[in-house]
Structures are given as C-alpha cells and as structure tokens.
C-alpha cells in the first residue's frame, strides 16, 4: 500500500495535518489531546520501522524516549540553552547514540531474548534516572520549566505556545518525520529490513550484513524516540520521569498493535484511539481508573482477532470490496479444465517454443583473473559429536565446469554444500575459492565474493512479492553487504531493475512479478529459489536438489532453465534425478558415507560397478532407468 503514486502519501498526510484543527474539535478532541497524539505518533514512526518493518519487538523504547527528553529538557532548563529546536536535535542525537550501544548488546540475540533484554535495559535507565543521575534529572520531580519554541525569521518571530499554536510546530515535526520514514521504507535499506523480518537466514545468505541493518533500524527507532521525548517536555512545559517507565514502552507497543504495525501511521491511529477512549471512558462514562482495563481488553481482542490492527483491517476490507469487482477474470480462465496429460503436453510445447533468454553473465570480480580452479577443497571434514558427516574430502572444480554430485541419502551432500558456502565451519580442512582461502569466513562475505547456493528446502521472503524477493538478492550484489543509503529510492539504483527483469526472464516468472510468494505454486517457488541465488550474479552457483518434489512438467522446465543459466557460469548441482543430472553436467562426483567414492563423466559413473553397488546394494545391472 505504500507503493502508489509518488508523493501521494506525503500530500495526503499534509492535507490531513492541515485539516485536523478544523475537523477534530467537532469530534470532541481537545487541542492538547491532538498534540499528545502527534508526539506518540512521531515516537511510533521509529518504533514501527523497528517492529512493523524489521520484526524486532522491543519492550524498551522508553529508554530512548526518556534519554532524548531529559537531555533536551536539561539543556533548556538547567543549562540555559536558548534554542529549543537545537536542543531537541541534540536530545535526538543523544538518544541515537544510546540506541547504538544498547543495540550492540540487545541484538546479540533475537526473538524473546531480544524482548527480555530490552525490558531489562530500559528498567536500568529508569533506575539510573531516579538515583545516580537525580542531580541532573530532578529524580522523581522531573524537570519543570521547559520553554516552547520560537523562531526568529528576521522580519517576524514565530512563537509557538500551547494548544493549536503548538500544534503547528508539532505537526511540522510529524510531517518531516513521516517524509523521512517514507524515504527510509522505500530505500534499499527499507527493502532489506523487510527481508530481515521475513527470513533473516536467507537475507544473510544472499549477502546482506543483517546485524548492521538491524542495528540501523534500532538506532533509527531510538532517534525518533529521542526527538519525541524532547517534544513531550516542550508540550507539557515539564519533563516527567514517567517517560522512562515501562508503561511508556507498553503503551507504545499497544498503540502500534491497535493501529496496525508495518503501516507507519498505525501508531498515530492507535494513539488517537487510545487517548480518545481514555478521555471518553474516564469522563463521559465515569469509569475512573477502569479505563485502562477496558483498553487492555480491547488490545487483547485486537491481537486475537485483528492482528494487523485497525489500518490492516481497513486495507483488507478495501481489498475485499475491490477484489469483488475484478473477480470475474480468473473465473473465465479456470473454466476450461485440462487433464494432466494435456497440461504436460502444453507445457513441453510452450517450453520448446520460448526463445532462450539472453544469458546473464556473472559479475566481473577481482578474483576473475585467477587462472587456477575456481574452487578447491582439501581434506574437508565435518564431525557432529560422534557422527562423521564428511571425512577428508578433496574436491576441485574448474572455471566453467558443470559438476553433479550424487550419493545416497545421508551421504553428506548437503553438509558438504553448507561447508562450501561457509554456513557451517568445517572441523578441519581448507576451502579455496578463486585463489582465496575462504575457510572460516561467514556466508555473507562468501556470497559477496560470488559463491552462493539455492536451498534444498525453499528459503524465500514469503511475505514479499516475486519482484521484491529478487530485488533483495540483486541489491546485495549492487550495493555490497552493508551500505547506509537510507534516503535513496530503489528506482535510482543503476542496473537494479534490469537485473531483476533479467532474472525474472531466466527463471520464467515474468508473468507474475507482483504476486506474493505465498500465492505461488510449488514449482514457481522452486524457480524463485534458484532466482534468488542467481540474482546475486554468482560466479559459482551451488544448487541443492533443484528438482526435488517437482512434477514431470516442472522438471522439464527447470532442466531447461538450468541449461540456460549454466552458460558462462560454474555450477555444482546435487540431485537424485540421475537422468536429468547426467543430461546436464559434464562430470559427476559420487559421495558415500561422507567420502568421495568416485569421480568421472556421466558415462563412466553409469557403468561403474562401485557406484552400482552403493546405490543398488550389489545388484549388478546397467544403471539406465
């Protein structure tokens, strides 16, 4: 939904902010309530980038809200700093720096560990504010007397005081916050953040330094929190110590979940609902302190039944309504049902008819001038406790070669691949890729060098579309493993759309670029899996059982696909489908019980007695079928 016309959302936000003072009073919103909503909304913009987009649920945002707020308030009250806006910015920077160091610790773990660590750290901030730093922060009294901003424009002085006057300043801040957040979300960094939310393992494997990006999201969230915290002090003319309380983090999370995470505006909507209900329940219904119970119950119900919040629910409703109008088209297509045989025949015919897509050359990298074998593994051994998965494997692949690896189940083929791509470290042995010793490197760096793999079990970014998936993989090759181009649009990256289009063509998904991955057929997902590896332009591509679980029709398509991508590229393929594999590759290595059994051309392997022994348990016949 963030991908419509350019600047549409920015313009709508501006119109909404300008119209608010004229509309909201009629709905029973006091100006102070609206101001509070804006501060929560701004606080939530950063939090939504962290939680909604990156998938990191932090329960400790109060630490940064309080840090930014108290730094700004201290500057403006006790230190006698004159410029309100500059103080807010300094508070924001202080919060961001704090966020950086907290992130270094908290991001050592993921999931519930991350949640627990952020809670614990935030609680430390609360106690530090109350005790060791009480001299600076006023302890439980907070810092009173925070001034409101005024700007001297030369000819006149703009002074923002309270109510709707201060609203103008807050609305301007919120608007800038939205513009920046939108740019971040639409930038390459934003795309990678959603990739991390969907599948951190694959995001790492296609060559992104996800730890760096997670830390970036954490710092962004801390910066927004810090600025919002400063605004809280300005708005109330008093910096309350409550900003550091766990309730602050909790309220932010609940408002975001109520409004809808991953929408940027969710926290604003959530805050509006929250504060409106709070006023309404307290005064109109006379519920007194029970308002929080009602809101808590509303929150639990929303999490149970409307997990994408109010905005998510509205979007679904809109899609449902819009979908009814376009529903008729697919009905016509499915009207003529085909038998399986007909489908197979049509598939083979269409596959044969299709022109070969232009081969996609691997990227020229520094190691390409290297003349020796592209990959050389010596004495590779992997031991899991008492189990010897791979034992003393020597393996060499030359440039341009197409190599097959076969072996019975449990022969150690996948473990061998995992060691080559540096997903698992070998117990002993050495791996040399293009003359460079890569033993002990991590999977991200190895992918950046031009060695990657497609997985045996699909590892896709299942919440994203086909095009977004390939974009994420292509970005790693075009931008390197970590770059902070947060304000650059995806469209402005040279070569990106070409590379994505070419990969779409290669893996034959040009007809469905904007389909969400969750709606693809299994064979299409398999091809996208290969496409993800391919979009990083590897010079050596490993394919772990690319044909597994495919229908005969899909096999035909995939074998053709593999043939076309093998041009100008070195590939190693593991598969159990020997007919297809022998047709594809030039040489075959047979693994058995973690060792290299034999190596040779497909014909040599077919007629090798030892191989037949291994596969057929001593039945000596010609391996032909």
């Amino acid at each position, binding site marked *: 939904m963030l991908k419509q016309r350019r600047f549409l959302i920015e313009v709508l936000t501006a119109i909404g902010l300008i119209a608010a003072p004229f509309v909201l009073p009629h709905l029973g919103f006091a100006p102070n309530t609206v101001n509070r909503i804006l501060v929560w909304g701004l606080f939530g913009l950063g939090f939504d980038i962290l939680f909604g987009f990156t998938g990191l649920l932090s329960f400790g945002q109060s630490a940064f809200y309080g840090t930014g707020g108290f730094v700004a308030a201290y500057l403006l009250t006790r230190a006698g700093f004159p410029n309100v806006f500059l103080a807010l910015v300094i508070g924001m920077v202080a919060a961001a720096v704090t966020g950086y160091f907290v992130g270094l610790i908290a991001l*050592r773990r993921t999931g519930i560990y991350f*949640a627990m660590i952020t*809670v614990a750290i935030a609680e430390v901030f609360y106690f530090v504010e109350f005790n060791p730093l009480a001299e600076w922060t006023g302890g439980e009294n907070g810092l009173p007397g925070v001034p409101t901003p005024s700007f001297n424009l030369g000819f006149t002085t703009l002074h923002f005081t309270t109510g709707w006057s201060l609203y103008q300043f807050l609305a301007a801040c919120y608007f800038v916050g939205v513009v920046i957040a939108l740019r971040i979300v639409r930038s390459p960094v934003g795309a990678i953040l959603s990739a991390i939310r969907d599948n951190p393992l694959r995001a790492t494997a296609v060559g992104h330094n996800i730890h760096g990006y997670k830390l970036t999201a954490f710092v962004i969230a801390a910066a927004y929190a810090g600025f919002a915290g400063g605004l809280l002090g300005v708005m109330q003319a008093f910096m309350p110590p409550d900003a550091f309380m766990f309730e602050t983090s909790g309220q932010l999370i609940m408002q975001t979940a109520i409004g809808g995470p991953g929408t940027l505006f969710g926290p604003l909507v959530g805050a509006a609902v929250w504060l409106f209900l709070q006023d309404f329940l307290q005064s109109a219904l006379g519920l007194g302190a029970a308002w929080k119970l009602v809101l808590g119950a509303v929150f639990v119900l929303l999490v149970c039944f409307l997990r994408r919040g109010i905005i998510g629910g509205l979007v679904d409703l809109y899609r449902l309504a819009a979908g009814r109008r376009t529903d008729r088209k697919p009905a016509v297509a499915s009207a003529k049902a085909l038998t399986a045989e007909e489908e197979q025949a049509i598939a083979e015919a269409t596959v044969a008819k299709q022109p070969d897509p232009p081969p996609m050359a691997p990227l020229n990298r520094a190691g390409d001038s290297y003349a020796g074998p592209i990959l050389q593994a010596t004495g590779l051994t992997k031991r899991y406790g008492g189990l010897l998965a791979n034992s003393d494997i020597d393996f060499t692949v030359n440039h341009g070669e197409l190599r097959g690896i076969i072996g019975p189940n449990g022969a150690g083929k996948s473990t061998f691949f995992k060691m080559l791509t540096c997903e698992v470290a070998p117990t002993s042995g050495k791996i040399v890729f293009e003359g460079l010793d890569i033993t002990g490197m991590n999977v991200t760096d190895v992918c950046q060098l031009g060695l990657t793999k497609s997985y045996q079990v699909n590892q896709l970014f299942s919440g994203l579309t086909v095009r977004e998936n390939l974009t994420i993989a292509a970005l790693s090759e075009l931008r390197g493993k970590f770059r902070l181009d947060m304000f650059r649009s995806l469209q402005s990256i040279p070569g990106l759309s070409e590379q994505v289009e070419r990969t779409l063509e290669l893996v034959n998904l040009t007809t469905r670029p904007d389909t969400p991955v969750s709606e693809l057929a299994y064979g299409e997902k398999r091809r996208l899996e290969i496409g993800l590896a391919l979009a990083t332009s590897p010079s050596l591509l490993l394919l772990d059982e690319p044909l597994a679980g495919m229908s005969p029709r899909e096999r035909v398509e995939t074998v053709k696909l593999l043939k076309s991508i093998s041009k100008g590229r070195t590939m190693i393929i593991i598969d159990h489908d020997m007919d297809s594999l022998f047709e594809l590759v030039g040489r075959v290595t047979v693994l058995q019980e973690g060792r290299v059994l034999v190596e040779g051309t497909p014909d040599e392997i077919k007629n090798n007695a030892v191989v037949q022994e291994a596969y057929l348990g001593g039945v000596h016949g010609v391996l032909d079928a």
Partner: protein
Amino acid sequence: MINWPNFVSQLFNGLALGALLALISSGLTIIYGTLGVLNLAHGAMFMLGGYAGYVTYTYTGSFILAVIGGSLFVMILGIVMERVIIRHFYNRPHEDQLLVTFGLGICFVEIVRFIFSSQSLVVPPPPLLQGITSLGFMYYPTYRLAVVGIVAVALAALFIVLYRTRLGMIVRAGIEDSVMVDSLGINVYRVFMIVFGIGAMAAGFAGIINAPVVSLTPGIGDDILVQTFVVVVIGGVGSFPGAILGGLIAGEIISITSMINPGYAYVMLFVAMTLVLVLRPHGLLGAQGRD
C-alpha cells in the same frame, strides 16, 4: 570497613529473594521451554497469587489456607488462560504471543486495581513464624528465614515432579522436541495445559509466600517480571537448574549492591546480564538449541 552482621544479614536477604526469584523463574522457564511461549503475564500471576491468598486469609484467618488458596487460584487461572487463549497462539509468531500475554497481564493488574484499589495490603506471617530468631552471631526475622526453607521445599517438589515422574519425563522430552512427543502418541496439548498450570502455580505460590515480606500492591508483579527476565537470561532459557542458579545470583547481586547503594542494584544486575550475554550467549546452563 564492612559491617559483618549487616553483610551476613544482606546475604540472607539475597538468599530469600534469590530463592523466590528462582521459583518464579522456573515457572516461566518451564512454560517457555515446553510451550515455546514467553508468558509476559507471569508477573501479574505472581501478584494474583498474593491477592488470592489475601482474600482467603481474610475469610479464614489461616495462613496455610491462604497459601493453598493463592496457589490453586492462579493454577486454575493459568489452565483457563491456556485453554481459552494461549492455545490459539502456538502457531503464531513469537511477537503475537508476547503481545497477547502482555495485554492479559495488564488486564489482570487493572482488574485487581479495580477491586482492591491501589492501596497496599498486608498479610501477616503465621504466628509460629513471627518475630526474630537468633542465629548466634546475629538476629534475623524468622519469617524470612522460613521463606528460604519453604521455597527450597517447593523447588524440591518441582524437581521431583520434573525429574522423577512420568509427567516430568514427558515435559522434559517436550522441551527437547514437542513434535516428536506428539507423534509418540502422547497428547501434547493436555501436557501443555498441565505445564502452564504448574508454571502459573509456581508464580502464585511465590506471590502469597512473599506477601508477608512486602506489602501487596497491584503493580508488585512488574518489577518481579523484569528481574525474572534477567534470571532467565543469566541461567539460560528453558533450563530449570539455570533458573535456580540465575535466581540465586540475581538475588545476591540485588541484596549486596543495595547494602552499598540501592540505586545501583539494577545497574549491577544489568552488568551481570551483559557479561553473561557476551561470554555465554545461551546463558550459564542454557542449551544451544532453542532461540
């Protein structure tokens, strides 16, 4: 110079607090280990144990009945909560589980606030355990001394249930691989329900045992929950021995730092947690598997 009697008495305070933390944390950790759900309402259940015990005490005047009432109430609440809500969250992301248990925790706290108001309530210790006891070199409140013993017995009971019974064997197997346990023909969902009940009861029991030490307020569980997190991170998520070790370490850190400067108690706790995270990311006694 260090004031020795004071130091030893703080060591005892740390032991009492640590034992309580160990009990609450083991409830949290076996629920997480078995069900894969981190129960953010665990602190609220600790608080509810105290209040349910208070109600029983006011009607019966018996501390023992208060302990039984508090524990049983929270256990039944835990079972109902698992049946009605948590069950539907096993297949949803961790984040949703955190959100829903967080929301439930707030509801519990606010319900108690609605009924009992925010004023603090007191449950006196049983007459037998009132007063102070001479330890030869110092005097120490009898009830606090008893807390250590009572909690040790409770932990031993939990240990026997976990390590010496058929149910415990299933629970420990479930921590390793709940899908496998399910496919062995054991009704894992029934086990999940029982585990949630036992875990909640551990918190409720700790809540009423702790009630005579500090006065009851609706927010009493919030601080405990945060301390429990630190305990679990230090000890290792899903590890029962880890919860006990982590609890004792955390209790002593809080007590000893409080003797020097109470303001730094949390800071030191946090430093300890950071050290563990840096040196042993999976906790002192945690396994590599779960994350």
